[in-house]
């Protein structure tokens, strides 16, 4: 715990730690000094290791160390969110679990590729036996349980939502916060209905041998919490992109600029 510049309890995005700006400038700096015709190639190369080879230029950019950090830490975030107690929401104090919230936010914050990697890493380590699935479950035995479908649904939802997020952020202007929020909420609902609920129902039907109508009814119980969580996820995602513009927004803009 040697990180002292954490914004601890303060919710204000203005308190973001310092390194945001130099990190954003990092990949751009070599682009200016190297061939100006290929900004994405310079981005893919590590700063200061010389000119990128032709192979790196042709391939889509690889993940750098910051991407690996984001993937690993978001996988850990999903794990912790699955394990901690549910938080109360609203006047009635309906408790919602945070795991799906973390999964949706992984998609909203990281975009499709890195979200797939983060959720995939979480699943892989859970299957390997770390007790990081909800309720402290672990191992391949989870695959036999009735909730197996939901667990795979997370992977596809985060990926699909990441892809939709990129589309929404690209098509809407930065000033139109409300339009963005509504579109992102729709994207989150669509991807969670199709993948989390779709595969969840399928999983209950296959593993617990429920009929599809019974599985559908059992699944309905999750919808109210999902709507709340998706609203919360979108507000948090917009705050995150405001606090860290180079998390996803600037990547998109750079890619657009290069195309």
């Amino acid at each position, binding site marked *: 715990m040697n990180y002292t510049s954490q914004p601890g309890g303060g919710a204000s995005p203005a308190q973001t730690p310092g390194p945001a700006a130099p990190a954003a400038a990092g990949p751009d700096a070599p682009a200016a000094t190297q061939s100006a015709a290929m900004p994405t190639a310079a981005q*893919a190369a590590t700063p200061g290791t010389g000119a990128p080879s032709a192979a790196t230029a042709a391939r889509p950019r690889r993940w*750098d160390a*910051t991407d690996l950090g984001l993937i690993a*830490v978001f996988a850990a975030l999903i794990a912790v969110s699955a394990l901690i107690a549910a938080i109360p929401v609203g006047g009635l104090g309906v408790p919602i679990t945070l795991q799906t919230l973390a999964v949706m936010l992984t998609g909203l914050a990281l975009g499709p590729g890195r979200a797939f990697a983060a959720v995939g890493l979480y699943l892989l380590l859970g299957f390997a036996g770390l007790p*990081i699935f909800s309720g402290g479950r672990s191992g*391949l035995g989870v*695959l*036999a349980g009735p909730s197996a479908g939901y667990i795979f649904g997370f992977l596809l939802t985060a990926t699909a939502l990441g892809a939709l997020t990129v589309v929404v952020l690209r098509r809407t202007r930065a000033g139109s916060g409300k339009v963005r929020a509504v579109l992102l909420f729709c994207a989150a609902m669509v991807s969670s209905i199709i993948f989390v609920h779709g595969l969840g129902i399928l999983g209950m039907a296959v593993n617990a041998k429920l009929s599809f109508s019974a599985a559908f009814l059992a699944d309905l119980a999750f919808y109210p919490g999902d709507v709340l969580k998706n609203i919360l996820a979108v507000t948090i995602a917009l705050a995150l992109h405001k606090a860290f513009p180079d998390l996803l927004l600037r990547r998109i803009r750079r890619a657009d600029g290069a195309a």
Partner: protein
Amino acid sequence: MRGHGFLSAQYVPGASPLHRSPLWLKFLLVLVCGMASFLVADWAVAAVVLALLCAVFLGTGAGGRRLFRAVRPVLPVLAMVGLFQWWQLGGPTAARIVLNILVCVVAASILTVSTPVQALLDGVASLARPFRRLGADPERFALTIAVMLRSIPFIAGAYADVRDSARARGLDRNPRALVLPVFITTVAFARQTGEALAARGLGETGPED
């Protein structure tokens, strides 16, 4: 959860044949049990298999309490499924469904109870090796796993801190105040970790790329 202790809580050290058998063999056992759970059509067979697996589990020297602890998380759901299917499909079918799920759970916990966490993680990291030709990098993969494990106590601590400060401000019913700071902290932490890795030359693409 603020330490790493809970991650290795399942492993029981020992020198039983299961402890000494290779990881792939135990993995195969889990896989076969998973497949069998779709094929076994008689609840009596499933019960026999479950009894066998329980005997194997106890053979590792882990003890009955460990066995119960491995099964406990699935029990409430299984009770619900069992009762519902008893009503819908009758006793034998309900028993078969529940027993088959238990078989898979016990088989999987045999793997985790007899294998140290480090060996399991090495096994996962070695999964990337066959994909090296497709551009996968086993070392970067192992590094990412290590960073993830190291981040778990930090994030658990962030959740606890944020919950305390929200409570101090009287906002412990406000989900935004309970969750948003955690995510901001998490992203900042991830990027600091990434920068720390880059500063040490770790996690970057190698010269062979």
